[in-house]
């Protein structure tokens, strides 16, 4: 369970997150909102790249914000980014193993854990192939594998389906749905693809201009008037 209380982030004159208070219970939770709503900023707070002006985040009872950013991975935070982050010159195995290595999960089970993760995301390639030789959709799967390897506690997925064709989004959707059960992690999914969010997330929270405007069961949230009008203000239409 992730409890966010009064989280406020300011950059110069802009308030990116405005007194955000929400609880992510378990399983896969969605986080949606129009562009600029603060979703990636929220992830950046969780990753430790941004220091909030106010507020706390308690993750499974522990104060997440007091941890140094690179140690959060050891604690169990994993994340994908909007832009491609898989390292091209390294192999699939090395990419995933690196996360395992720096999470200090021990060398003994590393090989097994890495191959497990690669298999879990359904990546059907030679693990020693260099990522540079993979297609975009496969690289995305490598990133998801990096996010689920070992024993993560919190998995943050930032627009994993962006730019993918429908078939690959389908596959990704199935993978994401199985993450909580396979890895025992709480997953927060940010995406603009509403069908993906509906398919994967039991609960969803909605941000608009840094403020939380709705949260609860996904189906109900997506029909909420305030959410609809927030989106109709931009080019995104449900």
């Amino acid at each position: 369970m992730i409890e966010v209380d009064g989280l406020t982030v300011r950059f110069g004159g802009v308030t990116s997150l405005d007194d955000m208070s929400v609880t992510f219970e378990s399983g896969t939770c969605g986080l949606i909102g129009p562009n600029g709503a603060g979703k990636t900023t929220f992830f950046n707070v969780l990753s430790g790249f941004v220091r909030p002006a106010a507020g706390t985040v308690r993750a499974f009872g522990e104060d997440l914000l007091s941890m140094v950013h690179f140690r959060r991975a050891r604690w169990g935070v994993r994340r994908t980014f909007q832009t491609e982050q898989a390292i091209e010159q390294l192999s699939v195995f090395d990419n995933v193993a690196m996360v395992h290595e720096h999470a200090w999960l021990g060398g003994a089970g590393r090989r097994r854990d890495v191959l497990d993760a690669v298999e879990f995301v359904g990546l059907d390639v030679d693990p020693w192939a260099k990522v540079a030789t993979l297609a975009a959709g496969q690289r995305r799967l490598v990133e998801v594998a990096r996010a689920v390897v070992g024993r993560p506690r919190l998995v943050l997925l930032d627009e994993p389906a962006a730019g993918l064709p429908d078939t690959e989004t389908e596959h990704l959707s199935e993978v994401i749905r199985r993450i909580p059960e396979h890895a025992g992690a709480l997953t927060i999914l940010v995406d603009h693809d509403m069908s993906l969010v509906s398919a994967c997330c039991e609960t969803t929270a909605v941000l608009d201009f840094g403020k939380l405007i709705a949260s609860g069961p996904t189906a109900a949230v997506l029909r909420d008037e305030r959410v609809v009008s927030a989106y109709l203000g931009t080019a995104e239409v449900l």
Partner: protein
Amino acid sequence: MPSWQDFQPFIVSGLALGGVYALSGVGMVVLYQATGVVYLAFGAVGAMGALIAWSLINDAHAPGWVGWLVCVAFSAVVTLGYGMVFGRALAKRDPLIKAVATLGLTLVLFGLMDLLWTTSGGESRAITLPTDGGGFTIGQVQVDWTQVIGLGAGIVITVVTGAFLRYTKLGTAMRAMANDREITATLGVPVRRVEAAAWLGCGVLAGVAGVLLADLVALDATTLTFLVISSLAAALIARLRSITLTFAAAILIGLVHDLLTPITSLTNYRDMTPFVLAAVALLVLSRSRVLSRSREEM
């Protein structure tokens, strides 16, 4: 420890030098704000312009003002040319790449200068301005007009640029571009023309600085090319943002550097002044920085 009297002439020379550093620093800051380029070739361009002026005056016997004009024109043209070709080609790249590219230009100019105006043979060149001879005295210190021009130019350029940025359409456009180039373009601002203006302005200042520094310091390719570091130091102390701060920092650098001259125990280290001040400023001012982005996307 030298006496107050010993320091006085160095206060004057330090202020004059600081003024020219301010002039250069402001030029670099404005260009950086408008284009994201730290123009490290600033010194080299002015140096070559000054050498061309020297050749015109000494070999072609052209009148002084023609030489200075050619120097400024040369610097302006080369800078504008670079900006239109390479500035544009690298427009979307990281500021680091853009800065390193200007180092490429610096090397080209540096090589050309050594090729065309070789320093082997021990001959030294000098530029004299008509304002060198005359002057006045403040108390016991001799001040010549060139030094006044140095400081004056720095003050004038800082004030004028400040007003320009705040009150004119072109200046406001430059400030907008510093903030966000793409949004500014969508607002209908002719981004390319604004950039061209910024490059041109910077080039002109480089030429002016070249003439003044050639007179106040030395007409030597290496010296002039790397004096840009002092102006850069001032600009860095101002976080490449505030031109008033650039001015203040530049004056400080000029003063400290020259005031160290009569102190025998430190005089050999006075050339460290801009380096040390800039390094300290960079470190102190970056203390509170966390890895963060100000926009939604990474």
